[in-house]
């Protein structure tokens, strides 16, 4: 059947634009649009008008300040990964990280230490670690006034399971450890401890709620009941 003879779904295009067709109707229109430039052009005009109205109707709200950072970090990480590893490694790494996300992340990090040269390792393991986040929200933690040079961190909030931190920090001094805190209002709750340096993770042992702040401080190796130093990294949920 030629295009001229074919029936154009002119009457259904407005509802298609709105996503308001029933499934069978939607499939039929979508199939037609694949081959009909005229209807595709009409659709583009309906969409332009609709989303222009939607833009005006959007709520006036500031996105979280670290949303942009989280988006860019996550995808910069993917680039670093794909340029360093061959196709097979990329495919392997792109698999969704299963239930024990932090554990899988640790394995990934060990592999990366073995496989990648030192310079590149130092430059990219943090980014690659975030690239392993297959299903969750990434919130960057900001370095605070007394943060060690090159200190970086991100809070990962998976859709299921515990939230955890991906941190890149220098080794703590003897007798000290990095301690994570979930700050609810003004009240800090101890949420995990690590004596590690370099790239490591801390699974948050305290529940995390909307509006909570997560911070990292240097504490005695056994941990503290309340922070005894200023935070080196912090970020809000």
């Amino acid at each position: 059947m030629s295009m001229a003879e074919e029936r154009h779904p002119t009457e259904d295009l407005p509802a298609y634009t709105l996503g308001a067709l029933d499934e069978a109707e939607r499939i039929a229109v979508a199939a037609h649009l694949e081959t009909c430039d005229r209807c595709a052009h009409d659709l583009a005009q309906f969409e332009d008008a609709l989303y222009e109205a939607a833009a005006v109707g959007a709520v006036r709200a500031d996105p979280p300040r670290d949303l942009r950072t989280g988006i860019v970090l996550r995808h910069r990480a993917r680039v670093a990964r794909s340029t360093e590893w061959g196709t097979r490694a990329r495919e392997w790494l792109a698999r969704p990280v299963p239930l024990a996300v932090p554990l899988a992340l640790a394995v990934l990090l060990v592999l990366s230490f073995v496989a990648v040269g030192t310079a590149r390792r130092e430059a990219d393991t943090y980014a690659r670690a975030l690239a392993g986040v297959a299903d969750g929200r990434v919130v960057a933690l900001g370095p605070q006034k007394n943060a060690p040079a090159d200190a970086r961190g991100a809070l990962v909030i998976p859709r299921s399971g515990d939230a955890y931190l991906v941190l890149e920090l220098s080794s703590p001094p003897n007798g000290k450890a990095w301690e994570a805190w979930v700050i609810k209002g003004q009240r800090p709750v101890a949420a995990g401890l690590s004596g590690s340096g370099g790239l490591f993770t801390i699974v948050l042992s305290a529940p995390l709620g909307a509006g909570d702040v997560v911070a990292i401080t240097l504490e005695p190796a056994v941990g503290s009941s309340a922070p005894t130093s200023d935070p080196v990294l912090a970020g809000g949920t």
Partner: protein
Amino acid sequence: MLVERIAAGNAEALGDLYDRYGRVAFGMLYRMLPGPEAAEEVTQDAFHAVWRRADSYRPERGRVRTWLLAICRNAAIDWRRTRGKRGEREVSFDAAPELLADAKVDEQVVDALRAERVRKAVAELPAEQRDVLSLAFWGGYSQSEIAARTNTPLGTVKSRVRLGMTKLRERLVDER
């Protein structure tokens, strides 16, 4: 071009896209979803979808902002579907007329003069047409669902959708 740079794997270009349209995307999702946390999560999902699909963008088939916002809206609908609910901010039929007519114009996103024209175009739609467009767009309801929930014949709902969208198109696309 921005989307071509994203398709080439340039994460900074994704940041540039966010700088340009992230605020309106977040604002739209904030309106569609139960709260800011959900809007943030779905914004991340949508930009990830942009990253994966950038090479499928066709400039001749629409503007970048339209393409991005459509991806955002689909991501929001997916989010609602997977959570098994439309969200606590479910669009009520009583509130529907306010959703477009009482638009909170974001002057930082939309040129003020242009925004006024858009708002006027929406406000001039007959209320029954504006209502069905609001319910379909913000609420994610199909024509059949709108007909069932408002006890209106399906043919009438379809007619209102068609007329309302056609007027929006005439008033907002032709005047450029």
